[in-house]
């Protein structure tokens, strides 16, 4: 399959006219109402917007956890519209790393085991050296053998980021990763994302309702009522 758009040969996400509607009683909620988006490798995009503006809905579509009602979506050159859950998993596997607001580490597994969890599902061999390397990237190498409950919130979120990195994902998608963190830890997470974009040429999409944090991205997209109402490019050094 080769549906690459001309002029965006490095685009890892291409979305055209994405729609997602929810029905609540007789009312139809247009959670997403026609979103166009392109994201390239080596780019960090933040999605801003008030609560209920459709950020999570958009993130879930982009990360292939959910299917759009209308519109076109390509991830790494593969069209995913209309794919069933089983096929969406295949698209996610190995391309996409997902980071959640609540970290969601498994409490019985150590930090290193949590990081390695995706490899079990990808049926890839575990390489402890590599795990430690990824943990070093998030500055938690010395916590490899700890259990999640022994870590602080900021540390747990960095473990979750390491978990998103272990399978050599090209795209990291993070929904409100700083929502449960204080200011300092929130800034640390965004700084880490910046570094990963620069050092590993990843594409990162991150939602937040914190304007100051959002401004740390290359591109800032503002959503309201399921539509993009503003898009600006930052000149970051």
């Amino acid at each position, binding site marked *: 399959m080769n549906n690459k758009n001309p002029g965006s040969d490095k685009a890892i996400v291409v979305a055209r006219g994405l729609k997602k509607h929810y029905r609540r009683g007789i009312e139809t909620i247009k959670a997403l109402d026609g979103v166009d988006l392109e994201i390239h490798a080596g780019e960090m995009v933040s999605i801003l917007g008030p609560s209920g503006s459709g950020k999570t809905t958009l993130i879930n579509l982009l990360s292939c*956890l959910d299917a759009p009602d209308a519109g076109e979506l390509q991830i790494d050159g593969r069209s995913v519209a209309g794919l069933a859950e089983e096929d969406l*998993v295949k698209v996610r*596997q*190995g391309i996409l790393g997902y980071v*959640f607001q*609540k970290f*969601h580490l498994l409490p019985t597994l150590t930090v290193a085991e949590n990081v390695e969890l995706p490899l*079990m*599902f990808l*049926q890839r061999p575990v390489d402890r050296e590599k795990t430690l390397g990824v943990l070093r990237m998030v500055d938690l190498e010395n916590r490899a053998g700890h259990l999640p409950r022994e870590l602080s919130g900021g540390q747990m979120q960095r473990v979750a980021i390491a978990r998103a990195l272990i399978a050599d994902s090209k795209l990291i998608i993070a929904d409100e990763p700083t929502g449960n963190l204080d200011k300092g830890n929130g800034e640390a997470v965004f700084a880490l994302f910046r570094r990963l974009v620069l050092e590993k040429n990843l594409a990162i999409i991150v939602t937040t309702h914190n304007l100051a944090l959002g401004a740390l991205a290359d591109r800032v997209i503002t959503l309201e009522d399921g539509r993009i109402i503003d898009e600006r490019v930052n000149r970051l050094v």
Partner: protein
Amino acid sequence: MRFVAFAFKNLFRRPVRTGLTVLAIALAVAVAVSLIGFNIGYRRSIDTSIDKLGFQVMIMAKGCPYEAATMMLKGGTGLVYLPASTYDQVRSDPDISAITPIFVGVAEKEASGISGESGSSFAIISGIEVQSFIDMKPWMTMSEGAGYKGGRWFGDDSTGEVVLGFEVAEYEQRKVGDAYFVTITPYGQVEPVMTELKVVGVLERTGTQDDGTVFMPIKEARRLFNRPSELTIVGFKLKNFSGLALRQFEQRWAKLPEVQVVGLQQVKTTLVSLVETAQTMIASVAVVAIIVAVIGVINSILMSVFERTGEIGIMKAIGATRSDIFQIIWLETMAICLGGGVAGVLLALSGTSLVEKAIQSLIDFGTKGTMVAITPEVMLVALLGSAVAGCFAGLYPAWRAASMRPVEAIREGE
């Protein structure tokens, strides 16, 4: 298989819940295993006890075949006698290949000599015709143990001589050459008469009722009990034993009054069916216990699936497929059921004697000693059964978990 260790870790997250669920399975399996083990062991023990009677058919006074059977196997009270002429008539039957008359009586045995205890107990006396009797039981040999050397059978006409079964000799501490006292109330008299007899031989252990029997010549037994022309049982073998041959034989001798012909195959069936009533009861308890335990497993796994809704969503988001999630939950269920199976078998092995006593107290089943036989086959069946139960119990929870939509699972988990 790559999820085995992971599934195990999940189980240890709630050790008490997992432990209780495993315990429920273990108890159910233990009951089932003991029951099957008892069934096998009991049949086996009935088989050997009856085979060691040496004859396939016996003639005895009319009564219920169960009484007949227990009397033969345990030695019984309430003995009914036949006229000695029965033996003379039947022995002429052309189909008979071997035949022996037996006179059974119960003596009061006043504890005497070395032990010096007061009180009394009973001794089962078998009056036998030596040659035909040992022809029936060629495995019977004289013990050559310490103090038993030089043992021999008595002659048919000898008086004052007895041969003791192994357990009698051991219990009474009698050696060859010792005196043995029996107290018998002769038929038609009121006063018991004590007689001193001499032990001329002690038999090797046979594992049957013969071990607890005192043997003497049939003539002497008749005299001591004052029943000069009576006997209790005629045991014999048919030349070509079959159900048909037995029925034909029975028809030929139906003319004898107050007599029944009992095939030992029939006795086996009677004894087995007798215990089956008790077994059916316990088996239904076991079945209910297994069903309850399996429902418990399903419930406990479902609970843990719902508790981990968010987690399952995360696993899907980081790359787990439906079948991965299905396998994980299914393995957890299997581990609980197999763990319960193993624990149940161990429990059954260690609790065998208790179970036996419980069954024994429900019904007197005609033989004695340990007989719950938990064979490797039974254990294998129990483990396979638990695995199969695990397979089925795991289906629904695993399907529920696999069907969780990641988005909703994550939302609920937040």
